[in-house]
């Protein structure tokens, strides 16, 4: 059975479960395993019976979902009337405004003739609970907080929840001590909640990552996932070629070289404790990005050959101030040189969840720290950062991470009644580091 056939079989299984009227179905999906494709397919099949609400977590995800429906139609899928329910201050993106068969509204009553309605969980919570739907789909159920599932449970009679268990767990800015270790704590993920309350939940998993290239799928599967998965493409199907050989040599050029040849590069800076917005790390990342944009890279993959666009490159960071510093530095280069490096997407792991790029430059979460805090050790954060790319990943970090991991015992208290995470952040970090060291430049 080919990878595509295996994936199609799983999708049929999932549809059969849903069509049988199962109250709760949970599909675990590794990065880029066609989660959104699955959601759209089930949505398209289920709407023949009834209108299907689709619950996503962010406005970007909602817009991407809508774009997916439009793209499906272009490829010949049966047309669906998609409704995009949104907040009052939302402005539809330019590329979606003029689309046919698409309705935007801030009121659910305007969307009564839509086949599927896409909105964020926060928006669904505002529509009043006098209506119910027999079936709904929740996307990114491991990213959604349990309290956000409450209003969904009030309105929806059965749910298909889809998500990536390796993603970042939800968080709060408030002191959450009093919610820890409680049964059905609002800080739990929606997926964990539904597994607790509905032990009969049908659990399925998508087996193949279409996004990750084969050299990354194995590492990510080993380091971060309980249920193993493989890549959907063969090693020779994906390739990067540099159009310009840089005249100057240096570690930045070496990093880009290693990334284009092997799919991985690890650029290590001097071992120094630094503030969160380490200017040298910002500099190194910006240099790598500029090198990538300058190198005139050609992307080869299962869809064909094309030039790499700056918007297909992302920089993944841990903190918002790191994001701001990298963005500012890229904007300054744009002003100075005219190279469109500011089109490169720079964001935190939390925001990059669920998104996909050709090349990702990662600012290692433990870079320049003196301790390995729980937040920075979070395996989900590292997993998100290392699993956004289709071709190559370049990690930039201060040295000494191994010593940090060895030298710092866990500081988090043990919460009675809380299930221990399946994944050990320490172990995941060491596995990844071991791999990165072999690709050091």
């Amino acid at each position, binding site marked *: 059975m080919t990878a595509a056939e295996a994936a199609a079989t799983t999708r049929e299984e999932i549809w059969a479960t849903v069509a049988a009227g199962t109250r709760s179905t949970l599909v675990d999906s590794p990065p880029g395993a066609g989660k959104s494709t699955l959601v759209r397919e089930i949505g398209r099949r289920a709407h023949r019976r009834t209108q299907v609400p689709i619950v996503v977590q962010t406005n970007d995800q909602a817009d991407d979902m809508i774009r997916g429906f439009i793209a499906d139609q272009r490829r010949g899928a049966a047309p669906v009337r998609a409704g995009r329910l949104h907040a009052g201050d939302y402005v539809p993106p330019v590329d979606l405004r003029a689309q046919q068969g698409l309705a935007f509204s801030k009121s659910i009553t305007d969307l009564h003739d839509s086949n599927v309605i896409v909105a964020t969980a926060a928006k669904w919570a505002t529509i009043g609970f006098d209506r119910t739907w027999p079936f709904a789909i929740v996307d990114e159920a491991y990213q959604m907080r349990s309290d956000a599932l409450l209003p969904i449970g009030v309105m929806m009679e059965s749910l298909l929840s889809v998500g990536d268990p390796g993603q970042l767990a939800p968080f709060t800015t408030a002191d959450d001590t009093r919610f820890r270790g409680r049964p059905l704590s609002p800080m739990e993920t929606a997926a964990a909640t539904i597994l607790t309350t509905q032990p009969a939940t049908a659990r399925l998993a998508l087996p193949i990552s279409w996004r990750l290239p084969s050299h990354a799928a194995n590492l990510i599967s080993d380091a971060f996932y309980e249920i193993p998965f493989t890549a959907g493409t063969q090693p020779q199907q994906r390739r990067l070629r540099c159009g310009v050989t840089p005249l100057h040599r240096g570690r930045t050029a070496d990093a880009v070289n290693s990334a284009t040849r092997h799919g991985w590069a690890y650029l290590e800076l001097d071992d120094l404790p630094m503030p969160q917005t380490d200017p040298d790390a910002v500099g190194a990342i910006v240099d790598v990005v500029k090198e990538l944009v300058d190198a005139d890279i050609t992307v080869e993959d299962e869809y064909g050959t094309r030039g790499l666009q700056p918007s297909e490159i992302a920089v993944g960071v841990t903190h918002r101030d790191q994001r701001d510093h990298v963005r500012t530095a890229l904007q*300054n280069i744009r002003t100075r040189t005219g190279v469109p490096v500011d089109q490169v997407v720079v964001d935190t792991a939390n925001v990059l969840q669920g998104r996909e790029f050709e090349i990702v430059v990662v600012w290692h979460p433990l870079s320049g720290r003196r301790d390995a805090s729980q937040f920075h050790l979070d395996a989900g954060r590292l997993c998100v950062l290392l699993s956004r790319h289709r071709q190559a990943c370049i990690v930039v970090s201060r040295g000494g991470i191994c010593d940090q991991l060895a030298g710092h015992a866990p500081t988090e208290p043990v919460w009675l009644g809380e299930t221990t995470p399946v994944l050990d952040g320490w172990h995941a970090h060491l596995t990844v580091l071991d791999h990165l060291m072999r690709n050091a430049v």
Partner: protein
Amino acid sequence: MNALHTHQALLAAAERRAVAKTTRRHVHLSPRPLVLVGYHLAGDLGAPLALMWGTSRDEEPHCTVVPEPRNRSLRFEALAGFAAEFLAYLSDFESRDEAGVCLDAPQLVVPNAATADWLGGIVGRFTRNLRADGDSSAPPSVPLAGKYLSFFADLMPGSSLVLAATDALTTHWQTGQLPSEDLNLAALLGWIDPPAGMYAPQAARAGEASPPAGPESDPNWDAETLAELIQEWHAADDEASRSAIRRELAGEIREQLTPAWADCWRALDRLDSLPAADHVTSRWQSDRRSWTGHCDRVAEGRAYFRNIPTPVQDATRLRILEARTEDLQREMAWDDPLVMAAVVASGEALAGRVVRTDAQRRTQNGNGRMVRRPLITIEPALEFARPAGTTLFLSTNPGVKLEVLPSDGSGLIRAEVLRGANQNTTIGLLPNLGDEVVLSPYGKPEFYQRPKVEYIPWTHQQILEDEPEESQ
């Protein structure tokens, strides 16, 4: 840690004195607080050993002791003594204004957060549901006081109904010692309020030598004094010798707790030396309202506290908690230039002088319409490395929302007004040429009306296997 706070900590260590983190006071101070200190038996949070309280520093504080903390009737007897006076203090705050809100609310002052957690979380929790009838009953005042203590355990950020002295002081001052060392009230006061002629570290060391402020007692004192007195209590065979031992124990306990009691008042004095910040009143008003709500529930016999809240209650609580946490941060920064300075130091806010303004500027918006977008150009006082597109709000007028424009390489920051100062009626709010301004990330909070989840939906109903059959 914030860059400014790191600087202040280093400065404090170098100059051997505490450094102010605020220019104003961000907690409400009641004219008549109830200062409360206490110990429990080592290793047994549920066994209070002694409580000491009072509403005036000039009076001898009241004190109650349990000669054998493991004996339940002795425990309830001692707690009844406290409960009667605690309830009498609270009854002074019953009078209401015409809107039905209590005119003032009580304020408990304790030495540290551990004492607050112990009194509200543990003592409140185990007394609030005690039965006043039947076997091993407690006096009715004890469960009632437990309901009030439980109310004081369940407070939001920014509330001043309970002040933990160490928390309140570290909000306002930075010491040169470790945060864990700041948990000792006497040592902390050594830094903030050292005796004349003594450097802070020296005064802090002297403070560390005084008896602990509770709720844990000094293990040496436990071994040398307490254990012996408890043994004597058990050995005593008549009432007269028992009361003698009780008096002796009370005397010993007073000696242990009086320093912490006095330190609480010292902490209040230090806080009182700062002028109140603007938003303290509105936060206290919200405290008064929640106090009123609790009094109503007690009066109607509805003052229930769930040990395990329902998912709906938890979700509501978390939402309010998140909003209040942000509100407090925002209000403190608006009220206090030194708090805002820390936000500037972190790079989130922009401080600088206005070097150019263009109040008439018009530009095309996303829909292609010409709209008024006044522009101000700022010479930043500290490097500001946020990218174009960052939205900021005028700190003196958070209704004015601006967006940072792409840098022109001159080092000046250009920001256009998106709302709040782009109409003829509001243009006066635009800063003038030469003004020193701060643009912060703190805008006016937004309120969303949300329908209430009335019942627990199927997704959150846990079916427990050992649940008894439904009774007929």
